[in-house]
């Protein structure tokens, strides 16, 4: 069963229409002075001030970047089926509640024992969905694989004050001993249901309902700017490493 009406990447550019996907934070980012480029079918904010200024914000205070364009796939299956599908599609990775697994350049996030969310680069969404569907084909019970890209707006918060910025709008405990790198918490973010992944020591991925994207941006920007932070584009963000080694496919398969 195809649910392409959920998949922004399934748009078909033609002579008359050239659909380019947009994030819910785009207008707020534009108002903050963002420069945009079209990448992988999306309009994305690549920078604001100079690259060096954005690096500095990330090094000294906090930077935040709209990453709503990241691909998101939602898996729903019986617990053992889900584990098998993930192991098959993610090179042997296993899911553990409360922990995000990094495999195949994607985050594998267990929402429950029967549901998982996979967050990946937008260009990889289609092929990953196909892999998941292929892995699901042998399951005896119902398996649902949905493109949930537009279900969640996403924002990355980086820098030494990222925790402090986050504490201004969420009560989720993000101390390293409670939420280590690759820790994953569903919980209230800015008074709304959200998902939180600690991507690195000073790097957090926040996800919240798509319709709340602009609101999240405004909330983060309000708190972050007050603490000396600034919005950053994808180019600066790319220099802040995701702080966990990926699961090696060979090891997983072995």
């Amino acid at each position, binding site marked *: *069963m*195809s*649910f*392409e*009406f*959920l*998949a*922004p990447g*399934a*748009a*078909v*550019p*033609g002579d*008359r*229409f*050239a*659909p*380019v*996907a*947009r*994030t*819910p934070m785009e*207008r707020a980012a534009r108002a903050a002075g963002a420069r945009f480029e079209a990448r992988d079918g*999306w309009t994305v904010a690549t920078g604001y001030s100079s690259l060096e200024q954005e690096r500095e914000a990330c090094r000294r205070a906090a930077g935040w970047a709209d990453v709503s*364009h990241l691909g998101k796939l*939602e898996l*729903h299956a019986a617990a053992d089926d889900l584990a098998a599908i993930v192991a098959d599609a993610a090179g042997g990775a296993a899911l553990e509640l409360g922990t995000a697994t990094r495999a195949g350049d994607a985050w594998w996030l267990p929402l429950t024992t029967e549901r998982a969310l996979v967050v990946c680069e937008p260009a990889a969404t289609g092929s990953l969905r196909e892999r998941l569907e292929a892995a699901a084909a042998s399951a005896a*019970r*119902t398996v*649902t694989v*949905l*493109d*949930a*890209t*537009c*279900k969640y707006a996403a924002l990355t918060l980086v820098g030494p004050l990222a925790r*402090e910025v986050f*504490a*201004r*709008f*969420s*009560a989720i*405990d993000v*101390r390293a*001993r*409670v939420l280590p790198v690759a820790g994953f918490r569903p919980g209230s973010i*800015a*008074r*709304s249901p959200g998902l939180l992944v600690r991507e690195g020591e000073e790097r957090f991925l926040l996800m919240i*309902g*798509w*319709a*709340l*994207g*602009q*609101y999240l941006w405004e*909330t983060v920007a*309000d*708190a972050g700017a*007050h603490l000396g932070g600034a919005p950053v584009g994808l180019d600066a963000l790319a220099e802040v490493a995701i702080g966990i080694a990926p699961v090696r496919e060979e090891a997983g398969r072995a």
Partner: protein
Amino acid sequence: MSRLPEQPGERISRSKTISFRFDGKTVQAYEGDTIGSALYAAGRRTFSRSFKYHRRRGLMCCAGQCPNCLVAVDGAPGVRACTEPVRDGIDVRHMNARPGLDFDVMRATDLAPSALTPPGFYYKTFIRPRRLWPVYEKVLRHAAGLGVLPKKQAEREWRTEYRRRHADVLVIGAGAAGLRAATAAAELGADVVLCDEGPEPGGRLLAEGHHERARALADEARSAGVEILVNAPALGYFDGLVPVWQGATLHQVRAKQVVFATGTIEQPLVFAGNDLPGVMLSDGARRLAALYAVRPGARAVVATTSDRGLEAAVALRDAGVEIAAVADLRPDAAAGGALGDRLAAGGTEVLAGHTILEARGRTTVTGAVLGRADGSGGEREVDCDLVIISGGAAPATSLVAQAGARTTYDAARGVFRTGELPDAVHAAGDLTGAVGGEAVRLSGSLAGTEAAHALGLGDGASRARVQEAHRRLADLNTQAVAVAVPPAVAGGERGKCFACFCEDVTAKDIKASIAEGYDSIELSKRYTTVTMGPCQGRMCQLTSVRVMGQETGQTLEQVGLTTARPPWSSVPMGALAGRPIEPAKRSSIHGRHRELGAKILWAGDWRRAYDYGDPQGEAVAVQRAAGLIDVSTLGKMLVRGPEAGAFLDRLYPNRFSNLKPGRIRYGVISSDAGRIVDDGTICRLDDETFYVTTTSSGAGAMEEWFGWWLADWRMDVHMTDVTQAIAAVNLAGPRARDIMATVCDLDVSNEAFAYMDGKRGLVAGVPCLILRIGFVGEVGYEIHYPAAHGEHLWDALIAAGAEHGLRPFGLEPQRLLRLQKMHILVGQDTDSESTPFAAAMPWIVKLDKADDFIGKWALEHYADVEPETALVGFTMADGHVPTEGAVVVQGTTPAGQVTSSRYSPQLGRVIGLAWVASSLARDDARITISDAGSTYEATVQNKPFYDPEGEVLRS
């Protein structure tokens, strides 16, 4: 100026002079000064006027405990001058005095006989004659309260925010015990936050000549990784959450273990004139001298109940204050000791068994009357400009009591201290009754270590240390304490003796309240308002309990304390409110609506386009050409699995298992009681997949509803909420098909794409699910597609429709158009009692379904009973548009209500929906609507006002 030479450990920086204004006059200060210390150094003695009697009040505690120095700083009222740091250029003004501090006309209330203003006089005086209440109210409101907020909103707002802080251990109070507790816990690996209301950690050590020790303890804590928050009072304890207010930030500290090291609060003595400027607590005078190098007076009299006052006398004498006399309440044998000898050696007379009876002076202290505590005479008047008092040290139990700790009465010291503690709560230092520096520090280490142990930290060595500490503390705490319990009142016949400085409650007032029957401390508190002011009982809890005990003959243990409630420290409302974070959902087309000039309003938690400036014109456009509305807010769910059809059959009163793929059916969700709770459409995508829409306002509740039942029934069904993932627009109107034909890759002819068909196809290059439904009564295509393409598809449709007269339309024209079709809005046209039968939808209930469904039992019952009321359409006879909610009357009896009403330009009349008596639910029946004091006639109509047979929809 009354600056002292440089004091060891002083907080001021003499090389940095700054200035500020007080009541318009420039005042010089040093960096590090408080407003209070700078003003005192400049010679000011009166800092405020009291709440009720407008008596002069001066610095007393110099620690933010009492209400005597409240001022307004840069327009913000209620700031304690004694702890607020001076900043260059600030504008400080007095409060609660007109025209000025030194002459206040309201002082008349103090000069009037006190019989005119007994406690509760306002309850008794201003209740009659009733017609004068508006006048009384105006006067009382003018007189009540402390301080005035700036009139302009912008001037009374400042940025505040919350900071959530999780911790393993929170230590409240950064005196010696708190610092040791924090360090001990942190050294065992705990994540520790330490907060204190003072400007630097150290507590009493700082003012008592142990500043180096205090700073060393603070350095140890920092080195151990403790986060220290200063100028940060803990406000209360809320089931483990402790709000800590620090300037513009409210820290919400959630700690697994909390150590209370809140220390003691030096108590005043109750005697005549005990509120006169120049009467100062011993700790306050020491702080002023030691931390800010300000001489509190030239010649002082000291009245004390313990060594605390004697220590202050020695320290102040060393700082250059002449100590004229000391009245030590303790009898000869206990009093003095080495301290007394030192004072006597310096020429100070120490009067054992004496206390102060009166402070004399008109605007400030000029003398003190001392006498024997037992009233046996020995009175003498001593000239002085400063009265130092020390009425004992009351453990600050309020916060720990809020956490569930019990308090016990310590008869030897005449105070209440901490008793039994609940889990995860620890007490340290003076709060526990620890005696002496070693005991205080040891109890701190012990509390911190035990808090860490409770977290599973520590080792054998730390556990051994705990055992040893318990043994040592037991030894230390058995040492006798030389403290005298002061009389409830001394010199009461000489003048007003204040038990509560905040609310101007005298000992006599408490006695009067007891005489009127308010003979428990809780009742007296409510009647006299004692302990209800800005000090929150710090200065008046114990004194009022003592008066209560004396007057009722009860022991202090029997009198007890009033219930401890937050906030422990006064805090601006703005700090509690924090930043205004209000989640707002916006559709992915929201920006376009703004650009098109839409009026945006809240609709549930969404921001929606209400109209684009011409709601009636927009409605007409839909009926004559075409309109486009953003309906992204609709709830949307995918229901999938081999039992999906059966699942929906159980949830809805009608059938879905027999719905063919590619077809749509309307559904109403009913409760267990058969009442309508939501509605929407269901499109079957394939054998196992249904696409369910719900109302916008019901989306969240329906997702929960579906989820609950799915969890209960354990069917092989997956449900996914895709509300926010999918944008949706409704293209409707006679030209809608033409427009669709230009942008859609499907055959949209009526034959190929019929009414209630659901198909998937590309619209403007975007994969969509297209539902041919007609909420607004015209040929319509509800297009569902990925939210990321919201604006793209909207723009494409607007562009394609331009030549067809397409207009965007908002929520208001949609409401009019659906009303013409009598399509209900659940929640507006229905309420918690509405059933499908009464709402004119009996056809949707399939009682012949073999299996059970939610609400079946109730609906079977309703099917056999004529409903009392029914939902009908109506048209108004005279063009009046009744208010939604207007009452339908039969004679003078309410018999229903209007739920929707609009003027329809297309129909040229006013139409509406209303609940009426079932006997009137027939075409052409006349009903009467009472609205805004008049009655209006209307005619019932049961079929839709527009396209009653649905021919347009199906065309």
